[in-house]
């Protein structure tokens, strides 16, 4: 009997509807900026994006007006800096990614910084007033790495380490072979929706057989009422986890048969400790990491939600796959990538449609059922963290 089972497991979350105001109010958005995004570890990318000394990428965290430069130094260490020149605050690096041959130059007055962030060159240096280069390196941002994922924290002195912050999620995934996976595609789409609308939609499976009736909705196990369900839900201090299984009878198509029912599947990658066919982690506040396994390779999809304004979000979808052993496996990965991408384009349409409905102000609350419990948990954590009701 599934009815109410998750609420029974997690009775503290209650059964109240969710107020719509936090999705549309500028005040709530401001609290999220100051108390959540400025005070959380945020995932910004992977170490394999910057394999060599001098490689860098820039990550804009629009909600905090921040631009972060993540660069691998000639000492091999990955560091994060504010992408701001120490002279008169010009944005230092203009491109999204690249590789510098040992030094970065500000285009305005040509101050030069080493790939480890020191100020190493100042034109007409004698004309400054007792300028000590050692005091004017790039402004560092707390940066840490877990399993190849790079995180930054914008607060001057983070209250907790990345490891503590990840807590039980890190414990579960410490032995997952992320290092075997390579970033294969990144999609970026700007949506007319609050970031929480986007997150909620990726945090339940209730909609799968309905909204995704033609696509992913046919892939996951359903109960005797025809609804998709969670095999497990685990809740952590900040984060949450749920898991699903594939349907045992998949919809077969000529291309799927050709790609997946031929070839060799020996030598499968060992993925320890997966609960279901799809394991889905929400990394508070704005990240999702989902894992799935197909034949002998595995895939990891991460989402990053970057709020731009209360009604604008950049959704970044990143696909990582373990190295394909054959071209058939490469085409299998292409199949998953395109199929998931096409499904997520259905979601994009729905996010904007839901946001428009909420913004119309017709309904003061959203109603949640038992299988939408992960959404309830996220909003509870967010509400506690942002202290919507609390004065600054």
């Amino acid at each position, binding site marked *: 009997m599934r009815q109410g089972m998750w609420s029974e497991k997690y009775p503290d979350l209650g059964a109240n509807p969710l107020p719509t105001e936090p999705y549309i109010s500028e005040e709530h958005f401001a609290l999220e900026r100051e108390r959540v995004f400025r005070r959380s570890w945020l995932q910004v990318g992977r170490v394999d994006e910057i394999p060599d000394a001098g490689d860098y990428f820039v990550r804009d965290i629009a909600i905090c007006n921040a631009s972060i430069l993540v660069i691998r130094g000639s000492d091999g260490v990955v560091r994060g800096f504010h992408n701001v020149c120490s002279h008169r605050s010009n944005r230092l690096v203009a491109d999204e990614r690249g590789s510098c041959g040992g030094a970065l130059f500000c285009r305005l007055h040509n101050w030069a910084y080493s790939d480890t962030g020191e100020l190493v060159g100042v034109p007409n240096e004698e004309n400054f007033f007792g300028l000590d280069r050692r005091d004017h390196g790039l402004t560092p941002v707390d940066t840490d790495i877990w399993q190849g994922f790079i995180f930054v924290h914008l607060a001057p002195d983070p209250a907790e380490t990345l490891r503590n912050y990840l807590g039980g999620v890190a414990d579960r995934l410490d032995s997952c072979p992320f290092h075997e996976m390579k970033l294969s595609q990144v999609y970026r789409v700007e949506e007319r929706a609050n970031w929480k609308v986007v997150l909620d939609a990726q945090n339940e499976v209730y909609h799968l057989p309905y909204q995704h009736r033609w696509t992913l909705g046919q892939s996951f196990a359903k109960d005797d009422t025809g609804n998709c369900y969670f095999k497990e839900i685990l809740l952590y201090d900040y984060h949450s986890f749920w898991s699903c299984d594939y349907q045992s009878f998949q919809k077969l198509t000529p291309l799927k048969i050709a790609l997946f029912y031929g070839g060799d599947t020996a030598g499968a990658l060992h993925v320890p400790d997966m609960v279901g066919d799809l394991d889905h982690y929400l990394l508070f506040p704005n990240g999702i990491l989902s894992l799935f396994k197909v034949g002998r390779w595995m895939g990891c999809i991460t989402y990053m939600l970057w709020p731009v304004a209360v009604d604008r979000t950049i959704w970044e979808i990143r696909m990582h796959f373990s190295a394909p052993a054959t071209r058939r496996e490469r085409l299998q990965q*292409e199949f998953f990538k395109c199929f998931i991408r096409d499904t997520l384009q259905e979601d994009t349409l729905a996010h904007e449609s839901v946001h428009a409905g909420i913004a119309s102000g017709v309904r003061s609350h959203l109603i949640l059922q038992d299988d939408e419990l992960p959404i309830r948990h996220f909003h509870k954590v967010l509400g506690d963290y942002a202290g919507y009701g609390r004065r600054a």
Partner: protein
Amino acid sequence: MNEPLLPDAFGDLAPFADWALEPERARTEKRAAASMDEIRAFYDAMILRIDDILAYLEDDFGGDMPAEAHRLYLMSLSLVEIATLVEFYKEREAVDACDPLRYASQF
């Protein structure tokens, strides 16, 4: 020198060689611009030969894929690109999604 467009055994697919595109964005744009009839004709031609194509592409070509084999490989990626439309939605009208060109891709 006259290079073959496609490997000898796949000469019958030559009319569809304009689907040999990279990167992914180029295939997505082709899919968006093509009519459903064009997409179905490409799908029908490719799916008949897909087992042979996959077997052919298992070859490692001594580490260096010749241009005509690479073209066939890119056409297979295009087959995957359009597969959701043909095998799942069946009709463009059934697609209830945002404009696919809104998704900017990196690779």
